């Protein structure tokens, strides 16, 4: 599904923040991406959701080489990847329902074709009663779940989550992890970037550990 070979990344003329990354993310796999602050987790996630291009090496996503990929094909690939941002990035002027339905709306689908699907997904993440609430009145946990629902709604093949439990209590963190595990069982590959060791200890999964720009893999 996704393959990195000798990938390096630097910002401008500075030193490389990621060095010689070589790894694969298989279909229907589950992995944690971890490492100390500043190790390059967010940079790697940005490479994974096509927000950055590597300065060297080969990145192959869904069988497409990023180096030769035309810009117009990027939105199509992004729709196959769901992203949960650390700061949620919900749009404050849209209701929870509209925020979650956004990926389907921008894909040009008619609202009547996805309405029931979105409502059921919101029920699944525990926001069934909050369809019409605007993000500013949602709690941190509710925002987190709305962001997860938005990442899932288009049935992505790969889900990337950046510190998805960073703003919630341990009980809710376990519940959110459970959501990701359920998702993985239903066939989606999941990458969770976190430095919450307690969370990683809850589920035995592959760990990609970034340290000083280099990647160490613990299967």
């Amino acid at each position: 599904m996704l393959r990195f070979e000798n990938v390096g990344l630097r910002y401008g003329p500075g030193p490389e923040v990621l060095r010689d990354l070589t790894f694969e993310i298989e279909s229907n796999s589950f992995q944690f991406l971890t490492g100390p602050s500043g190790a390059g987790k967010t940079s790697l996630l940005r490479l994974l959701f096509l927000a950055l291009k590597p300065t060297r090496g080969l990145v192959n996503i869904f069988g497409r080489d990023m180096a030769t990929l035309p810009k117009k094909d990027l939105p199509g690939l992004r729709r196959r990847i769901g992203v949960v941002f650390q700061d949620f990035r919900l749009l404050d002027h849209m209701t929870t329902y509209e925020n979650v339905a956004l990926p389907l709306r921008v894909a040009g689908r008619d609202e009547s074709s996805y309405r029931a699907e979105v409502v059921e997904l919101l029920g699944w993440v525990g926001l069934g009663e909050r369809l019409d609430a605007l993000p500013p009145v949602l709690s941190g946990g509710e925002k987190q779940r709305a962001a997860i629902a938005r990442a899932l709604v288009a049935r992505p093949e790969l889900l990337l989550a950046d510190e998805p439990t960073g703003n919630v209590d341990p009980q809710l963190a376990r519940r959110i992890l459970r959501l990701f595990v359920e998702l993985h069982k239903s066939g989606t590959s999941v990458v969770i970037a976190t430095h919450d060791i307690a969370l990683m200890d809850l589920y035995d999964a592959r760990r990609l550990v970034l340290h000083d720009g280099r990647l160490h893999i613990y299967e």
Partner: protein
Amino acid sequence: MSANAAAAPEPQGRPTSKTAPGPKAKTASAPRARRQGPIVPASSVSGHTLVMVIAIMTYLAALTAGAVDLVRATAAGWERDIVRETTVQIRPSDGRDMNAAVARVAEIARAAPGVVEVRPYSEAETARLLEPWLGAGLSFSDLPIPRLVVLRLSDDGRFDPAALKAALEREAPGASLDDHRRFLDRLVAMARTLVALGLGVLALVLAATVLSVVFATRGAMAGNRDIVQVLHFVGAKDGYIAGQFQRRFLKLGLKGGLAGGLAAIGTFLLAEMTAEQGVGSAAVDQMDALFGRFQVGPTAYAGVVAIVVLISVLTAVTSRVTVFRTLRALD
């Protein structure tokens, strides 16, 4: 993998699809059709500010366009009136029969090409002209008072002042053609300078309008940067994102432009009405004498419409360019 996570509380409900969490079948709990809000917020503080900036700048630009049109029409009127008329002056001298001289001049003038009407001023009319300075009861035998013959000229430019001047010198001694050419040249130069100045001011106001609208639009767009990023990362195509913003900002531009344009048209109409009502008063008559009747022509109204369209399109295009610039920075 261990099953530690199984100890965590269950999510509320489960995905019903084998391939993805969302259910494929419609459920009884499906809500009624809901009206989806716009992707770009309909109103915001920056949006209101942008509308106000656009309205004010449109109003100023439209007023300038109206004023320039008024100056242009007035200057053209001056030029037209002066070109259409000229005068022959007959100076008295000992033993000259002034009435015969006036009749002779009129005869020569009538024969000249391009002269459509010849109007000799009688003694009585001449006396009336001089009355404000010399008083009533003027005696033509006491004072050497010149006589005037006014010629109305055609618009076709056939009138040849040099030929008429030569004919008068030859056949009517003491008569001279009051060639308005020098005065006219100065007047035309002044009128053209006024119009050029007006156009220069209009160009500056339009440039200021364009720059203000561009900067105000960029300012309003800065508040929407998050929306552009979110749309980008959920897989929206660049054209789709730009289209959403372009439509919203075109509406903002039209709203501000129409407010400013209608206010300017209202000002024109109010000024015309005020001038109309003031006819007969010394001030308005003086203004009429100098500048002609205050009347904004159709060119000015067309200019207002053009400014509104220009500013609306400019707002939309600026938002589009800003979206593409933001997206370029993201990729």
